[in-house]
């Protein structure tokens, strides 16, 4: 058995019953909810960081959606 094949076998072992799930199903059931969780949990930190780089005038300058990432 080559190294690559061994690694593939190892990866399949780690997944357990993971091979039973198709990728589209996994995207809907796992990745999208997880992405929403991460966004909500981390957004306040992002917002604090962006705000900390703004001057006092820029704090109130909401024009378009630029203020989300421009500082």
């Amino acid at each position, binding site marked *: 058995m080559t190294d690559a094949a061994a690694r593939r076998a190892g990866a399949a072992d780690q997944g357990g*019953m993971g091979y039973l799930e198709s990728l589209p199903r996994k995207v809907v059931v796992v990745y999208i909810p*997880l992405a929403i969780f991460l966004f909500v*949990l981390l957004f306040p*930190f992002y*917002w604090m960081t962006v705000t900390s780089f703004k001057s006092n005038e820029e704090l*109130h300058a909401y024009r378009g959606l630029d*203020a989300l990432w421009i500082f």
Partner: protein
Amino acid sequence: MVAVSRQPEAPSIGLLARLHNNRNLLGALFMLPAASILLVFLTYPLGLGIWLGLTDVKVGRPGIFVGLENYIWLFRDQVFWLSVFNTFLYTTVASIVKFALGLWLALLLNRHLPFKAFIRAIVLLPFIVPTVLSALAFWWIYDSQDSVISWILIEAGLIDKTIDFLGQPNNARASVIAANIWRGIPFVAITLLAGLQTIPASLYEAATIDGATEWQRFRHITFPLLTPIIAVVMTFSVLFTFTDFQLIWVMTRGGPINAIHLMATLSYQRAIVGGALGEGAAIATAMIPFLLGAILFSYFGLQRRRWQQGGRDD
């Protein structure tokens, strides 16, 4: 006969040596350090708090014993009852939502994911950061003029003027509960994740071979095996939420006209800001029965000991 033959030896052993071999005395000696720490740092402040609640002590003036007068006064106090209501609402809603979302997040994190360790680490961030800092972050996010939430909703065309998050009592209640949930989810999720890791994969494999659906696997394998951890997590979650202080105090100081005070913040306001130590101590003491009730409920209601020890589960 045996006892009689041993008797002459007894007087030759000295008092000190006999004490040395006395298990009860040694046990008491070894427990002394722990007991004294508990007495000095737990029992004394608790006792002092309860005693202060029975006096009319003010800052800078020693009080006299007034019996239950503070409690009678509080009983007629609308703000106190409002704070009791707020505390119960806050604890119930936040604990239930934290548990549901935390369990969901734990189930997601328990899967085989790319960057698993990294994701698990950053999910903990809201819990690691000091509450005062995240409360300040939320203060700015909930700002009545420059709230990022209002602004995004306006840009999306869903609302046409900014939301007054902390200025209206009901909005303020919902906002602080949301901030508390945000802060509490990682704790619940990571603790439940630790519990999920102890469930052997072979159980799920066997259940799948028997044709169990995903819901059945959750209902009959994951949930029963997770019950002990859930009991511990919910106990801590309820206690921390019930006694929460920092979030409310930093964000609204008890809210628009005392409307969203919790018992802890009201106690602090009356005792430290207002100087009425006795009354504040009475409010704090009034929390104890509720906390005891919560502990007893989760101990006897949620922790199913017989089942864990192999007995029948009723």
